[in-house]
């Protein structure tokens, strides 16, 4: 039964190309205008990080390890010797190459090259290199000696940074600090005769932490306005559905519906559901368009769908509320007030035009209490790479808002909405 109403609603929308164009076309036009206008100044992509790092070794690591084993085979317990022979964790430079600079996420923005000592001068003169890491002679040997014999004269890596690339150099340093911490931990464990292989799991964890910080991308202006326009314009779906319902009453079709013994609950659920469904499709179309033409892409599609669903439910709630109010007061004024004035106010509060929340916490809170504002915050968070936990508050608000609106509408819906 409810499906019949939704189908009919869909047909009506389909037969009203002007309405359809306005509802779906407007946000697309706005996104296009803003996208093009802002294209020059605040263009899309975040500054792309692309670093080039060279590593120069003075001496082969394997040789140093063999030498160390030869020199210390008498002093150290055989298990320790064996673990040095096999253990990855004592091949400090190999680890740096494989697990640090070889990590997928780091490889994505650091071009890591192993160079020969003889190329050093040339590299230092090449300004495209962000940093050059120089591993001094006996580095690994001395590291092992320092760790396993409790001497404190530990060797250090030599890092030469490019003056012109401070940000890049900072990133490389951060990575090396993490790496050093890890070695420090190995030192500690080894010094206390614990098995350093337990580090493998901790190490994974540490790197994924670094990576998630790096993933948190800034939202570009293009993405911002795409979300802003989409969440604003989807509100017109609610007013369109509200208007349809009102016309239904005005032209006495609603009388026929009552006489067919259709309860107001069914009628009402149909209004909500079609509001929800059409808003959902609306969001898919608008964001799909922005994806294809403006490259506003969603890495986390399930989360995008989840946000869209929750947001669509809140819009369905608004549609229901508008219908109930316009039935109650037998006037379309409410719906037109909503679509002409309230939508704009909500859009400003929700931050569709500019990030209002940046100027005051109060306004930000207020904005997040509009469905479009909450939807916007959630979408932006997803674009930034946040996970479900970070946006669950918004999602809960959206769904609750939807249901609260539906309940309020149902209560105020006149018992006999008939018309004479």
């Amino acid at each position, binding site marked *: 039964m409810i499906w019949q109403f939704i189908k009919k609603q869909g047909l009506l929308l389909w037969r009203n190309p002007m309405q359809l164009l306005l509802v779906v076309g407007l946000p697309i036009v706005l996104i296009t205008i803003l996208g093009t206008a802002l294209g020059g100044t605040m263009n899309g992509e975040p500054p792309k990080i692309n670093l080039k790092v060279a590593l120069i070794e003075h001496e082969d690591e394997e040789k140093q390890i063999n030498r160390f084993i030869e020199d210390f085979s008498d002093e150290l317990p055989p298990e320790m010797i064996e673990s040095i022979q096999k253990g990855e964790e004592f091949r400090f430079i190999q680890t740096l190459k494989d697990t640090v600079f070889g990590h997928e996420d780091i490889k994505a923005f650091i071009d890591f090259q192993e160079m020969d000592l003889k190329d050093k001068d040339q590299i230092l003169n090449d300004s495209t290199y962000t940093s050059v890491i120089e591993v001094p002679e006996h580095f690994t040997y001395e590291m092992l000696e320092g760790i396993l014999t409790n001497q404190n004269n530990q060797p250090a890596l030599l890092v030469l940074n490019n003056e012109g690339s401070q940000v890049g150099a900072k990133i490389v340093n951060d990575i090396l600090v993490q790496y050093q911490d890890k070695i420090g931990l190995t030192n500690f464990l080894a010094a206390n005769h614990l098995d350093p292989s337990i580090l493998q799991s901790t190490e994974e964890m540490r790197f994924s932490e670094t990576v998630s910080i790096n993933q948190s991308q800034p939202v570009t202006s293009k993405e911002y306005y795409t979300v802003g326009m989409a969440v604003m314009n989807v509100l017109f779906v609610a007013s369109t559905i509200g208007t349809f319902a009102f016309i239904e009453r005005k032209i006495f079709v609603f009388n*026929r519906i009552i006489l067919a013994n259709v309860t107001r609950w069914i009628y009402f659920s149909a209004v909500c559901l079609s509001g929800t469904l059409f808003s959902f499709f609306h969001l898919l179309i608008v964001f799909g368009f922005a994806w294809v033409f403006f490259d506003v892409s969603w890495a986390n599609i399930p989360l995008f769908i989840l946000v869209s669903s929750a947001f669509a439910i809140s819009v369905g709630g608004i549609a229901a509320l508008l219908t109930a109010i316009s039935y109650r007061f037998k006037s379309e004024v409410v719906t037109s007030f909503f679509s002409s004035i309230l939508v704009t106010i909500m859009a400003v509060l929700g931050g569709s035009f500019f990030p209002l929340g940046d100027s005051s916490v109060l306004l930000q809170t207020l904005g997040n209490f509009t469905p479009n504002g909450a939807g916007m915050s959630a979408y932006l968070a997803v674009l930034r790479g946040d996970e479900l936990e970070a946006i669950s508050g918004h999602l809960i608000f959206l769904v609750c808002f939807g249901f609260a609106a539906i309940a309020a509408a149902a209560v105020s819906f006149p018992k006999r909405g008939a018309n004479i």
Partner: protein
Amino acid sequence: MLELINLSKKFKQVHAVENLNMFIEKGEIIGLLGPNGAGKSTAITMLSSLVEPSSGDVKFNGKSILKNPAQLRNIVGMVPQDIALYSDLTAEENLQFFGRIYKIKGVELKRKIDEVLKLIGLTDRRKDVVKKYSGGMKRRLNIGVALLHEPEFLIMDEPTVGIDPQSRNYILETVKRLNREKQITILYTSHYMEEVEFLCDRIYIMDQGNLIASGTKDEIKSILSAEKVISIKADNMNDAFIGSLKENPLVNRMVVSEKEVTIMAGKEVNIFSPLIKMAEDSQLDLHSLDIKTPTLEDVFLHLTGRALRD
């Protein structure tokens, strides 16, 4: 079958319907006649359970419908006074939607849609959106939708307003056929007395919220048994003549139109000589002077002093 007991509806200022008493038996065609604003539509929305009366009751097979309208609704087909259709949908889509909300499905729905379209003569235009229909076609579909679930009781609120004579005749014939062939009980509302005279077995006449007459055609016309109705026609109908008619005590009632004046006078009174004299005095080109068989229109005039249509 259906009984209206002291039914009243008051809007803020207006008494739209006051103490209306009516009954409708199975198989009848009942006419509800009255000028615009008489309260016909208000009465109909109350008796069909769409609107609650301010006071009074409606009983269907002896049981009040106010609390429990479902049974009545199941057998009622309602043709509203306005075109209650989705103008952006085709005739077929409209019928499909309304059929489905009556829980008719599949093959049965298809058969009923075909049947209705044939009955209202829109089979060829079934795939056109209603927006593109003429007034008459819309009216016919408006009726068709009400017939889809095969109601036993059809309520029609001015179903012929604003359409060409041909469509009108088609509708009137259809109504008669529905009653004769399918034994559908019909309540027909109109401000056209010819329609009501043509269709109905019994008639209720309303004016300003009140019932002013009821009964069979003959019973109602016998209200006029003490009066005769005279129609005066002239090409140059003028104010002087009309003025002297108004002043004449023998004239009980009168309605003036462009080239015709209808008056009522006592049956026993000789009014012809005074009429001819008045015509001469005001230099009227008298065309004809007839005694008419009274119509419902004349009854209305007699009862209210006003014409049914203005």
